[in-house]
């Protein structure tokens, strides 16, 4: 066999192997979560786990394992983050690609992407010393360690990816769509809203999905900045504790092999399934838009 053919085959094998390792890892994680979760439901009933709102597994006597409050908190913080990040992110991306001069864009875009490199513990820190006091002051609260704080911080963390991916999508919209719009008398704003953005919906959806995944799975920031209360929140001004925070806090101290131990796997499994669902849904919607033609 000649040398080029050898290396060609060699790399093909290496990359094929890598792809399979990734798939097997995913399946492995899923099975590990599933098997351990199953053990949890030997002692805890499904009904209690999913409909109960009291999470008190370490209680002396009657331990309770309801993830309702944590699940709701996770969704509350995540949706809040998206409500902040999506309009801001799309707006910033539109500004970068359609309004800013090439020079401004070449400075701003890398700077925004750099924001993604800030460790989450630093963002959490900012949440405690900066955002929380500000929220307390603005809304006249005893303290600002609440769901809103978490949403704001997660929005900041989701923004770099959201902006960057959306900007790429907007940038890829063919110039001739925009020209057709201008030639019909549309201004820049109308062209952006009615032609450019609708033409790159699938790209924007991917961006939102990535942001959502980031927000759902983020642990450190929400653990630090949302007040760490396991009770069911009434709104954005209540302290909360997300599923990720609970697993992170309790996994280190829980006695091995107890129902509490296994229940944390069940928590992680729920989170895993939610993210999976978000990914699948987004993929389908995006595929639908791609078929319509872009």
């Amino acid at each position, binding site marked *: 066999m000649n040398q080029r053919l050898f290396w060609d085959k060699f790399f093909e094998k290496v990359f094929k192997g890598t792809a399979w390792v990734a798939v097997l890892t995913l399946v492995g994680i899923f099975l590990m979560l599933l098997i351990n979760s199953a053990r949890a439901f030997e002692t805890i009933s499904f009904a209690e786990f999913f409909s109960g709102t009291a999470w008190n597994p370490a209680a002396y006597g009657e331990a309770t394992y309801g993830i309702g409050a944590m699940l709701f908190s996770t969704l509350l913080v995540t949706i809040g983050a998206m409500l902040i990040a999506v309009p801001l992110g799309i707006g910033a991306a539109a500004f970068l690609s359609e309004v800013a001069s090439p020079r401004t864009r070449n400075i701003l875009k890398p700077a925004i992407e750099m924001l993604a490199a800030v460790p989450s513990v630093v963002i959490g820190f900012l949440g405690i010393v900066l955002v929380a006091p500000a929220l307390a002051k603005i809304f006249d609260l005893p303290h600002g360690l609440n769901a809103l704080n978490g949403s704001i911080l997660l929005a900041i963390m989701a923004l770099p990816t959201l902006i960057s991916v959306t900007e790429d999508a907007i940038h890829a919209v063919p110039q*001739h*769509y925009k020209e*057709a719009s*201008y030639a*019909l*008398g549309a201004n820049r704003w109308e062209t952006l809203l009615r032609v450019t953005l609708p*033409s790159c919906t699938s790209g924007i959806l991917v961006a939102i999905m990535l942001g959502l995944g980031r927000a759902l799975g983020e642990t450190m920031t929400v653990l630090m900045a949302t007040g760490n209360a396991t009770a069911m929140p009434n709104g954005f001004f209540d302290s909360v504790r997300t599923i990720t925070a609970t697993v992170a806090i309790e996994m280190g101290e829980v006695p091995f092999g107890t129902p509490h131990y296994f229940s944390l796997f069940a928590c992680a499994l729920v989170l895993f399934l939610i993210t999976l669902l978000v990914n699948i849904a987004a993929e389908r919607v995006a595929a639908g838009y791609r078929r319509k033609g872009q």
Partner: protein
Amino acid sequence: MEKIKIDIQELDLFFDKKQVLKNVSLHIPAGKITAIIGPSGCGKSTLLRSLNRMHDLNPQARLSGKIMLDELNILHGNTNVVHLRRRIGMVFQKPNPFPKSIAENVSYGLKINGLHDKKKLAEAVENSLRAAALWDEVKDDLDKSALDLSGGQQQRLCIARAVAVEPEVILMDEPCSALDPISTAKVEELMLELKKKYTLVIVTHNMQQAQRVSDFTAFMYLGELIEVGETRQIFQKPQHDLTKNYVEGHFG
């Protein structure tokens, strides 16, 4: 003497330091088809795009001279570009319908101009599609994506889209260069039909097409307007050697 719809006077255009149009003066008569011909790169598209101020999008473009649309000074800074583009529509070389439904494509220009009445929009869609000789082919598929149409149908849809806002002038930049002969014949037939209501300016590389459809022909070479006249005269008795060589197919 013909009524003049667009009067181009001593137009110069630079892209950065490169001069692309050199002292171009040209009358576009109302209700006629004027063809602009010339070798690739001579500035035909650039001239056409000056008429509806498409160069506004390009910060490198600098224009001087004067272009009048009836009484409107097109290049003047105070001219409302939105109104101007409503009066001068454009069809591009490559069919470029929006990735929207057929009906939405046609109604786009009306909607951004503030028309939201569903019944009126539907009427305008039908009329415009009829004007573009496309109605019979698509009347049952108005909600389907415009991108599922054939290239020729897409180009006629783009014509319908331009017609919908009822412009006075329609600019067409090589509208048939991406089309097969049958679609081309349809679009040419359509041009002759549209001439009854609109003033048309077309750019074409197809000498037969220019002779088939246009009333007047302008020949450009390296950014200059070499010769303009009745189409028959330009093709049969060109005054200028460059024109003669070009229309006889010796270069280009």
